[in-house]
């Protein structure tokens, strides 16, 4: 697929964009870091709608901060209780209304395919901020941006992904994004949280190099990046199943003793108990840095999609 650029595009999956598009985004994000604590007026008069049907802290607030730093305004809601959906309005009608009010819509929803459906209804660009267990493309863009900033490259790295590989949408999107690069993947999870068939077939179709283990100690000395995700309790069809796997993995000082000196630990957050708090004080811990880069990365994304001139 040739690059269509970013202007006016929907952002539904990472695969809607090329490696070149991602690199344009990273370069722009690096530029935006200078303004992440000040103000640019390149999106003056533009309105961004935030439609968060599911809880969020970082994604929603970093989109909101990014839009405000660019000089634009934000409308929206978080949770359906205060909206007409509590009266039974459907998603399609809600999106039609936001489309009429705003220049772009950021949507998070528990239903898979909700963002794609919204994009088919709305004329304005729709940005997927997470749909069920399927996609979370802007998180994956942020993850790759963080890696790119830490190592100056993504090609050639060995990347361990530890945790809920079955239900975590960030894992799906991250692996899609990494398929553009030459990386070695070590997938680490308890047996019941192994990747779904769809993801395995995707990796095979892209010729990705990967292996799977349930023991992080077997691969810790090889990884440059250890990406940790929590168990997605809210996605388990059966709560008993969750009880069986909770607490089955933990990144602690003992584990990272075996790591390469330059190894970095990333996490999309929120963290529950899968990274010991003691790890926060080591030079490996980059997850708070990663979260802070969410603002310049999303500034860059909004600038490119909404066509802000700097």
């Amino acid at each position, binding site marked *: 697929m040739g690059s269509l650029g970013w202007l006016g595009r929907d952002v539904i999956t990472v695969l809607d964009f090329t490696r070149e598009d991602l690199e344009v985004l990273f370069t722009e994000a690096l530029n935006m870091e200078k303004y992440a604590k000040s103000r640019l007026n390149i999106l003056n008069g533009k309105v961004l709608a935030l439609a968060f049907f599911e809880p969020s802290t970082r994604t929603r607030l970093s989109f909101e901060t990014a839009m405000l730093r660019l000089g634009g305004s934000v409308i929206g809601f978080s949770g359906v209780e205060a909206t007409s959906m509590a009266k039974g309005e*459907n998603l*399609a009608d809600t999106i039609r209304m936001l489309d009429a009010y705003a220049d772009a819509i950021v949507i998070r929803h*528990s239903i*898979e*395919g*909700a963002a794609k459906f919204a994009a088919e209804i709305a004329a304005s660009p729709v940005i997927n901020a997470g749909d*069920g267990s*399927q996609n979370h493309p802007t998180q994956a863009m942020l993850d790759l941006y963080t890696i790119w900033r830490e190592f100056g490259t993504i090609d050639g790295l060995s990347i361990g992904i530890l945790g809920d590989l079955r239900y975590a949408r960030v894992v799906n999107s991250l692996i899609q994004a990494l398929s553009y690069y030459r990386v070695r993947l070590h997938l680490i999870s308890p047996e019941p949280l192994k990747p779904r068939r*769809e993801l395995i077939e995707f990796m095979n179709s892209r010729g990705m190099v990967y292996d799977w283990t349930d023991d992080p100690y077997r691969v810790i000395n090889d990884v440059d990046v250890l990406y940790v995700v929590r168990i997605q309790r809210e996605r388990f069809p059966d709560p008993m199943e969750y009880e069986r796997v909770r607490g089955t993995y933990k990144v602690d000082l003992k584990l990272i003793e075996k790591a390469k000196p330059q190894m970095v630990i990333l996490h999309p957050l929120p963290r529950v108990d899968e990274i010991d708090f003691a790890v926060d004080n080591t030079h490996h811990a980059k997850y708070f840095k990663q979260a802070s880069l969410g603002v310049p990365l999303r500034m860059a994304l909004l600038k490119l999609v909404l066509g802000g001139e700097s």
Partner: protein
Amino acid sequence: MSNKKELIISKIRDGIVIDHIPAGRALLVLRILGITGREGFRVALVMNVESHKLGVKDIVKVEGRELTRDELNLVALVAPTATVNIIRNYDVVSKFKVVVPDVIEGLIKCKNPRCITNQQREPVKSRFRVVSREPLKLVCDYCGTIHELSDIERSLGIA
């Protein structure tokens, strides 16, 4: 023997003959085409007759109803061996083998209950992209779930 059996049903004047349907699948073919029998036009169905190619086969004849090539190609989902003869004034005017189309809209229900296409109050039709024809493999365009022949048969209520 075979000739004798096919003579059970007379020739049609204008319409379509779907031949070489795997034995026992003629009813499914009608279901895929959305033909219930209550529409008023003539439908003939032959099941489990001898065939040189298949051993045993089914045949469906529909008189007086136009079906597009896209509609007919959907038959390939349950009857990949089927051939279609278009009849005008008792003559075969064209003949083709059905092929599964690249995109299938509205016909099959996605098996993922958390897919947007299974939300009752949203105006959305299912849409699948064909990633492999042999063996048949479709992917839901909204949620990415992979569907095989058995899932499609289950969706059509025939497994």
